[in-house]
């Protein structure tokens, strides 16, 4: 039981990071970036490339990975999303999908189809805790996730830039009127959300391995978390990420491991059907969103 909870927390922190990435872009643009899972995959694989092939020390490799994926996300926004000023919704969805196919194609071309290993960040020795075995990497995952969440919260609540971004989310027109460059905010939001994906990818690879086609399922589950938490709400999506992770690991352990991937999706469908504003979303807020 405790074991399931640990696994759940680990999965949950990844979903939370992916969900946070969705939330960033959605808040700044109203777009749901279906290529979000690809950022996670790229983060994992670039980290593998840096540490195992270039033999760069891990901390430096992590920084390089972060920078590289952030750059990819920003370039993607510049080249693919930016030119589509008044595009229809279907076109926007298709563009992020085409982007995800392209990223997957590049990754398959560069890394092949095999999954890659990455050594744990710290010690490899399993820890025994309350009768459960704990991989030390799980502590890294939880710690880094909490750090990132704290950082993001600080960014949005305390810095001028973060507040400007929140303003764009509430009302782009009004934000523009008070002198905020909405275009720049959108650009940055893609970069930051790619960085969040890269972090998730880099820290999860030592536990789950990483291969080129991992993206779509991660994106779907992260999105489930984002919706369950009330789309657009950062604390909500983090809580929902952990909730879905725990549900999934409990489901895998108690029901059937084959259907574990279906659990998050079922939650997604039920939430969308019954209460699209999410568990933590308020009713007034949801009326402002376009369901």
């Amino acid at each position, binding site marked *: 039981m405790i074991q399931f909870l640990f696994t759940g927390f680990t999965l949950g922190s990844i979903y939370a990071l992916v969900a946070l990435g969705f939330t960033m872009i959605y808040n700044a643009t109203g*777009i*749901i970036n*279906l290529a979000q899972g690809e950022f996670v995959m790229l983060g994992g694989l670039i980290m593998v490339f840096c540490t195992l092939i270039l033999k760069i020390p891990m901390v430096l490799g992590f920084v390089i990975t972060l920078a590289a994926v952030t750059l990819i996300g920003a370039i993607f926004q510049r080249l*693919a999303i930016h*030119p*589509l*000023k*008044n*595009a*229809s*919704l*279907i*076109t926007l*969805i*298709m*563009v992020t*999908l*085409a*982007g995800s*196919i*392209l*990223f*997957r*194609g*590049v990754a*398959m*071309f560069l890394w092949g189809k095999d999954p890659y290993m990455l050594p744990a960040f710290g010690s490899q020795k399993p820890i025994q805790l309350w009768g459960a075995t704990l991989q030390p990497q799980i502590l890294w995952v939880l710690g880094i996730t909490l750090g990132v969440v704290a950082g993001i919260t600080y960014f949005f609540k305390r810095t001028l830039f973060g507040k400007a971004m929140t303003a764009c989310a509430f009302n782009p027109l009004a934000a523009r009127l008070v002198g905020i460059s909405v275009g720049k905010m959108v650009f940055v939001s893609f970069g930051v959300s790619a960085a969040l994906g890269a972090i998730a990818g880099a820290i999860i690879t030592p536990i789950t391995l990483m291969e080129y086609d991992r993206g*779509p*399922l991660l994106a*779907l589950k992260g*999105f*489930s978390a984002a*919706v369950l938490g009330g789309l657009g709400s950062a604390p909500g999506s983090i809580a929902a990420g952990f909730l879905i992770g725990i549900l999934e690991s409990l489901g895998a352990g108690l029901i*059937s491991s*084959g*259907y574990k*991937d*279906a659990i998050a*999706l*079922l939650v*997604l*469908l039920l939430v*969308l*059907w019954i209460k*699209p504003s999410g568990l933590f979303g308020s009713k007034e807020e949801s009326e402002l969103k*376009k*369901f």
Partner: protein
Amino acid sequence: MKRKDFHALWIIAAVIGIFPWAAGGNQYFISLLVFLALNAITALGLSLLMGYAGQISLGHAAFLGIGAYSSGVLTTQYALHPLAAFVFGIFLSAGIAFLVGRPTLRLKGHYMAVATLGFGEIVFIVFNELSPFTGGPSGLSNIPPLSFWGFPLEGISFLYLVWAVFFLLLIFSLNLVNSRVGRALRAVHGSELAAGAMGVDASQAKLQVFVLSAVYASISGSLYAHFLAFISPNAFGLMFSILLLMMVVIGGTQTVWGGFLGAAILTLLPEYLRGLEDFEVLAYGAILLSVLLFMPQGVLEGVRRIASGRKERGAR
């Protein structure tokens, strides 16, 4: 149905009629044309859903799979007649589309896209996990060919059957969009509120076209199962749903023909790209992305605009 549609139809029918003989019964060309027709059938249904009702579905491969697995499982494990299995698949798809469509079609835009995506993925997982029936990830083989009165349809005769089915559905769709129902759908696409004010039951209209497109997909799936004699869940996954959607978007959502054109491009293009080997996926993604960026209205409309020399206006 308009006169121009008739002309286009005759030209395509003539090409398809002559082609197998001109190619000397070449197996490769026959299967390529069969796949083109199968994809075109599904794309036709999707273009009704997207172009006319303005709804997006990222889970249509699931309905294809439901049709294919109905045919496959019922004919191999329960020795049912292929036609009976075929009809069962249609009803099963329609029923599931009805149940799923009701709550899902209330959603809009991105939410609808992701909900259908989730639905498709769940069906995909079920295909994998119900292995006593479906054979699981390794698939289901030895599906008998479609036969009428003991006369099996294979090769060229199957090619003609598939295209005949496509033409029937195409004529039906062309008539549908020019009927009261089609006008109601376009009104819903324009503005649900306005359509409602004019007495159109928007949610009813959307649900009907969603079920119809699921039926098209199921027909295509059943035919696919009988043609290949082998099915596995991977053929009905997310990638194929995206591919179907790409067909409609690339062809253009303005007319029913867009779906056909998109199906033709996306069925034939990979065959040309095959020479590129490892670069195939890359080239594929790049081509899709550039069509979306430079011809957001689809190839049909893009070419028409270039041909008529009008300056391309931006996307809607």
